């Protein structure tokens, strides 16, 4: 049997293809991006013509996947954890409608915030929507879950969540692939009214979802991904979820763990296994990546059962990702702590690339803003967010995708005039257009800078869905064409840029300035690929 050395994200991409998927729908976001990229580059995906183009945002991605499921085919939607905030309306309601073809939502959490605004735990969304959740502990499980998840979704008749975290996404290990399944044929939902969530139907569908919970529980209890591992020493029982299981076993190679362990990779929580652990052990230790979700539910409000240790009582840190050292500490194990980092070592934060167009835009903006009080530039999420750091220190916000335009409008409503929004082309397409419409409808005194590098660069240079459409979108939404300007952000155009910024900051209405120059990283990889 051939073993592939796959990243977790690649294992999921391969698993989805081998599971008979007909379409992947996604918006980039670390650490989920490479699932879709892997499928985009896969020969079988091309041969089968599996849908694999990027969507404008996570909501459009998930809804499109749901549409494919309606038509009977298997689909996957991929996003990072905060992307699920954007797609949440669709996701939670898809648990109500149910599916026809198998539907997997793959969501990648980023505990410790390596490249994210927060470390929210997507399992809460899965529980909230009341659907089964799969959480692999190895790249092999990630492959198997992606491949078999469609069948699980078809069996349970709801979308299934596949939850991974950064370390699972971006770590490589050997994976053995199974037989490639056929795609589903086009078919209509058995119940033609299933997808109509009018109150009368929705109430019926909700009862169905509630009744399905018993089945979901039974499947969890019988799942090959969950198991009870015997242990002699019952002074402690350990619940290890997802990748935390590996960090635990690092300390007990070859099955030498003295304590009973419940390994969990499928939810809802397998009640029988956990009740047995509770019955047999004096104390419980809960190891889970992300928030203390399992711990909270086992501890209960009055904490008057078996003592439960974990992130809530300080046995493990309340925030940040787990690692083998934290778990060694929680188990009271001694280990050599390594050498200290010498004081000479300086931080090396990421920075804008030399020659990046965002730099030229910031230099000109700073000059044009010199006459105003500080704190007027609201920004967004992308490479340009690094403009918060020296030497620019131009921007004062980065909250969620699209919030630059809407926050600038709110500040202008409050009297902070002019207020400025700094947003990238992809973020504008993702969530900026509706905010622009609000501003146009109220003739807000804001200037929107759409720094267009013709790429989704922060996540590695994917295609931006706004490519070549930004001016026409702005005109279509109702911005006065006399106040839409495009300029190439280069040093030789500096004076012209400063003049434009000054003029438009002074204009009492909505204006849009588009500094446009291709991301230099994207340009060089494009040239490499053309060779």
């Amino acid at each position: 049997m051939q073993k592939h050395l796959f990243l977790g994200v690649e294992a999921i991409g391969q698993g989805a293809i081998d599971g008979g998927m007909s379409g992947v729908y996604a918006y980039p976001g670390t650490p989920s991006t490479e699932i879709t990229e892997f499928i985009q580059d896969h020969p079988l995906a091309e041969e089968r013509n599996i849908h694999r183009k990027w969507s404008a945002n996570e909501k459009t991605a998930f809804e499109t996947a749901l549409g494919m499921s309606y038509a009977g085919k298997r689909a996957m939607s991929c996003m990072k954890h905060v992307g699920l905030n954007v797609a949440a309306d669709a996701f939670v309601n898809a648990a109500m409608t149910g599916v026809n073809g198998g539907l997997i939502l793959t969501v990648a959490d980023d505990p410790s915030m390596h490249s994210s605004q927060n470390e929210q735990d997507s399992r809460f969304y899965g529980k909230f929507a009341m659907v089964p959740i799969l959480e692999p502990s190895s790249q092999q499980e990630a492959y198997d879950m992606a491949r078999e998840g469609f069948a699980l979704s078809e069996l349970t008749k709801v979308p299934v969540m596949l939850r991974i975290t950064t370390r699972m996404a971006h770590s490589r290990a050997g994976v053995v692939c199974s037989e490639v399944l056929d795609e589903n044929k086009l078919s209509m939902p058995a119940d033609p009214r299933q997808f109509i969530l009018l109150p009368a139907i929705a109430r019926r569908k909700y009862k169905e979802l509630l009744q399905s919970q018993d089945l979901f529980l039974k499947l969890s209890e019988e799942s090959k991904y969950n198991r009870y591992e015997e242990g002699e020493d019952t002074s402690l029982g350990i619940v290890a979820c997802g990748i935390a299981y590996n960090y635990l076993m690092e300390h007990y190679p070859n099955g030498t763990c003295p304590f009973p362990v419940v390994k969990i990779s499928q939810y809802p929580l397998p009640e029988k296994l956990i009740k047995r652990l509770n019955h047999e052990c004096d104390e419980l230790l809960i190891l889970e990546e992300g928030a203390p979700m399992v711990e909270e539910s086992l501890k209960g409000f009055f904490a008057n059962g078996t003592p439960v240790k974990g992130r809530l009582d300080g046995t493990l840190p309340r925030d940040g990702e787990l690692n083998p050292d934290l778990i060694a500490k929680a188990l009271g194990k001694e280990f050599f702590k390594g050498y200290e980092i010498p004081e000479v070592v300086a931080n090396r934060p990421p920075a804008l690339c030399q020659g990046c167009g965002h730099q030229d835009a910031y230099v000109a903006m700073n000059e044009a803003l010199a006459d105003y009080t500080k704190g007027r530039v609201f920004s967004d999420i992308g490479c340009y967010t690094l403009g918060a750091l020296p030497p620019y220190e131009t921007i004062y916000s980065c909250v969620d995708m699209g919030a630059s335009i809407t926050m600038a409008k709110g500040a202008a409503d409050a009297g902070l005039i002019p207020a400025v929004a700094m947003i990238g082309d992809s973020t504008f397409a993702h969530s900026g257009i509706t905010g622009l419409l609000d501003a146009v409808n109220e003739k807000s005194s804001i200037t929107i800078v759409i720094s267009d590098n013709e790429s989704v660069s922060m996540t590695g240079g994917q295609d931006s869905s706004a490519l070549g459409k930004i001016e026409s979108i702005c005109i279509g939404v109702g911005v006065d064409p006399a106040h839409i300007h495009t300029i190439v952000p280069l040093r030789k155009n500096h004076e012209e840029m400063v003049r434009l910024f000054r003029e438009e900051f002074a204009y009492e209405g909505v204006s849009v300035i588009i500094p446009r120059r291709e991301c230099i990283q994207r340009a060089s990889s494009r040239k490499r690929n053309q060779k």
Partner: protein
Amino acid sequence: MTKLNLELLIKLNMKSDIILAGVGGQGILSIATALGEAALADGLLIKQAETHGMSQRGGAVYSHMRISDQPISSDLIPGGSADLILSVEPMESLRYLPYLSETGYLVTNITPFVNIPNYPDIELVLAEIRKLPRFIAIDADSIAKEVGSSRASNMVMLGAASPFIDIEFSKIENGIRTIFERKGEAVVNMNLEALRRGRAFAEENR
């Protein structure tokens, strides 16, 4: 126990936990790929955690590479247990010292990559490296230029680290052949030469 049995036992418990370090854009993953090929060819198991995303834009990057003949549990190397820190940049080599084991080696390039205003005096950095009980500090950039291209510097580094990795050297050579094959015989040979020069330096200076 006979000597042969003992050797067999030692061979059976092969494990190399390696921290690869550098700056985004320096291509530390090319080292991981070459090593990965070699380990696979040797029938070994691998786990390798990489840094993607935000930190790639000129920030500090690292990879945890674990090679063993036994199943590997954690994707991350526990603190104080790495057999080797292999860094393509001197200051970055020091950032991961908490991972180095009591018997571990630090192998680093001495050419600084200066992209921050507060980069420390390089002499201070080198002094810290020399404080360690086991280290190899090598001018990989110069050696790479001598063999034909500064881009071969990562292969010089892999060569310098190879005496401390429990994989047959010929397998590492084959790993390099595999990954540079597409680029032609000349490129393969240059990288092999870089690898050998790095190894020779380490053998002389360990």
